[in-house]
């Protein structure tokens, strides 16, 4: 404990030996996030009460920002399943120091995606038809099943963490549940890995099977188009990077060491390795697409791009700037050792995946499918942005609460052990 540390009013709820800022600052921070949340709630109200016409979506862009956002957060939330897989199944022990964070981020990403999906479907009251009247041939059915099942897995993975809260854990029943869940956690990690692999893949498959849309359509293996595998690879390449970035961000905001640098570098190395695999396949896939599929559909490379908004720079940014470059950076041990370069590479890595999800969603639909059709353009409006920020704010609130009250970071006490003369003041008051 820092010598000048004054325990906040809610000290009884805060994990043992962890410093936290004053409750008032924390409340203020939550209040700020809640304002963003409420704007999102208002946008959601508009959409649910009046219809999706409130958005900028249209008959050409049935999918837009929301689907891009969903795909983005689901890919970036892949840190949860992949870290779980490595930690519990492949026994890479150091990852235990970020596994809790990865689970929380995964939980936020998946539940956030579900919130946005409820808005995105025109008839949310019928959402359960996805189970009851499932079409087993649809990639989306697989997505619906796997995402909801995996969401339950994430809840189960999150529960022991909640039950380990200082006060809750005193109840013997809850203590027992938390303990036993920890014991069977490898089972859930395995289930999570299985479900997650499939729905990440199916999300990619969703686009790859669109044989009427040459921008997205891909050949494949058995019933799975290549995008199926590319989505899995890109998710595991970016998920760990985001987990690591968020840990770093939380350290910046709280002014406390939460995860040791070697663990972060390990996460970077994992991301880099997967990114290498992904980038190789992505380049191969792009080549096959340009040289094989496109001409067989009667299209030239140039026809896939339009103006600035859907220009070739997007392809360059996705593959070279946000694929090859971060891959190189993350795979190089010396660059990883430099925190700035490590974070920059991770940011590029995540950006690349988001660009990938964006172009596959939006550019696919913007491209004229019939020769006498024209390029269409799409710019989301505030009603679409607000729920996305709602999810970010919700994630912020959940992470803040978890950080403050739950023993998320096993290394925290050790890393901030007792005397830290050089420690920065707790600037954000969290």
């Amino acid at each position: 404990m820092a010598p000048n540390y004054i325990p906040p009013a809610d000290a009884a709820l805060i994990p043992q030996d962890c410093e936290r800022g004053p409750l008032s600052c924390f409340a203020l921070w939550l209040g700020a996030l809640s304002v963003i949340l409420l704007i999102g709630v208002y946008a959601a109200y508009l959409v649910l009460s009046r219809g999706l016409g409130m958005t900028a979506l249209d008959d050409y862009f049935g999918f837009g920002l929301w689907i891009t956002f969903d795909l983005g957060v689901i890919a970036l939330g892949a840190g949860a399943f992949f870290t779980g897989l490595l930690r519990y199944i492949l026994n890479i022990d150091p990852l235990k120091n970020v596994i809790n964070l990865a689970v929380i981020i995964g939980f936020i990403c998946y539940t956030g995606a579900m919130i946005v999906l409820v808005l995105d479907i025109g008839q949310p009251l019928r959402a359960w038809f996805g189970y009851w009247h499932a079409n087993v041939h649809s990639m989306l059915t697989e997505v619906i099943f796997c995402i909801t099942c995996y969401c339950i897995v994430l809840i189960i993975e999150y529960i022991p963490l909640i039950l380990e809260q200082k006060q809750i854990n005193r109840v013997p029943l809850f203590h027992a549940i938390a303990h036993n869940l920890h014991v069977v956690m490898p089972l859930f990690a395995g289930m999570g890995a299985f479900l997650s692999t499939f729905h990440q893949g199916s999300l990619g498959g969703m686009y790859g099977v669109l044989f009427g849309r040459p921008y997205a359509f891909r050949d494949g293996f058995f019933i799975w188009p290549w995008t199926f595998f590319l989505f899995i690879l890109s998710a595991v390449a970016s998920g760990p990077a985001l987990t690591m970035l968020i840990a770093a961000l939380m350290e910046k905001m709280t002014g406390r060491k939460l995860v040791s640098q070697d663990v972060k570098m390990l996460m970077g190395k994992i991301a880099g390795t997967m990114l290498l695999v992904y980038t190789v396949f992505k380049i191969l896939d792009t080549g096959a697409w340009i040289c094989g599929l496109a001409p067989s559909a009667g299209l030239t490379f140039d026809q896939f791009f339009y103006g600035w908004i859907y220009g070739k720079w997007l392809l360059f940014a996705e593959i070279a700037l946000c694929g090859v470059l971060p891959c190189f950076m993350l795979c190089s041990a010396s660059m990883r050792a430099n925190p700035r370069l490590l974070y920059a590479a991770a940011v590029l890595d995540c950006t690349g995946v988001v660009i990938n999800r964006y172009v596959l969603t939006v550019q696919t639909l913007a491209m004229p499918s019939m020769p006498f059709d024209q390029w269409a353009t799409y710019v989301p409006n505030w009603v679409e942005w607000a729920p996305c920020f709602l999810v970010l704010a919700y994630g912020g609130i959940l992470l803040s609460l978890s950080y403050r009250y739950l023993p998320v970071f096993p290394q925290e006490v050790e890393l901030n052990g007792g005397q830290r003369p050089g420690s920065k003041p707790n600037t954000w008051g969290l």
Partner: protein
Amino acid sequence: MSANKHFNVKWGMAIDLDKCTGCGACMVACQAENNLAPLADASNKQRVPNWLVVYELSNKKSFPDHEIAYLPRPCQQCAEQPCATVCPVVATERNEEGGIVSQIYPRCIGCRYCMAACPYHARCFNWFDPVWPKGMEKALTPDVSTRPRGVVEKCTFCHHRFMQAKDKVRAGGGEVYVRGTDNKLHCAVPEDGYVTSCAEVCPNGAIVFGDLNNPEHRVHRLVTGNANAFRLLERLGTDTAVYYISRREWVRRLGDNYLPDEDTQKPKQILPKRH
């Protein structure tokens, strides 16, 4: 949902682009027939529910060599549907004798995946609840149900007319499917007994509707072995039920994507099938 289900009867169209003047009567008839709501401002074409859209085609040449043609585009009723295979809740399928791709509004959850899948832009979404000016709802037909916001809709080849035509045959004591002279099963509904609304109102007779499998139907005779007949995006392998006819080469070439040096007449390479 299995691939390319075969049916004895395959309703289809042959649209003669050399006859279509682009007047829009088919579009208006379609809306009145299928209970679409009018819109005060219909200038955002990507938000306007139209089951049938007439496109203006241009040969892209300068004045005075310029030529135009009009192309009405209903749902193409693909035998190899990009849309039905992706619907997560079986709200759309091609599973009935006649080969019309259905759209079930009370089943649709509004995910719009089918719209993303359809390369013909044949599907529209109800972005808002439909609104008719006061009293105009009295002119709705009982044949087609009205749709709330949040569901996808599309041309159904006026499927209700098919149902009514079948009932008329049954009410007269007849069987709906009978063996024809070619010893195959055909629909006993007479050729003019089931016609879509767009085909019915076209003063130029540009739209011919009937059973593509029935050699006695005009549409069959028009598209079989006609080098002037083509379908939209044929190389995708969607196997559509809507044929277009034009004697103009440039019009036919606009039916599909061709590389600059590619010949329209060359047998088309069909993209690999997914499902």
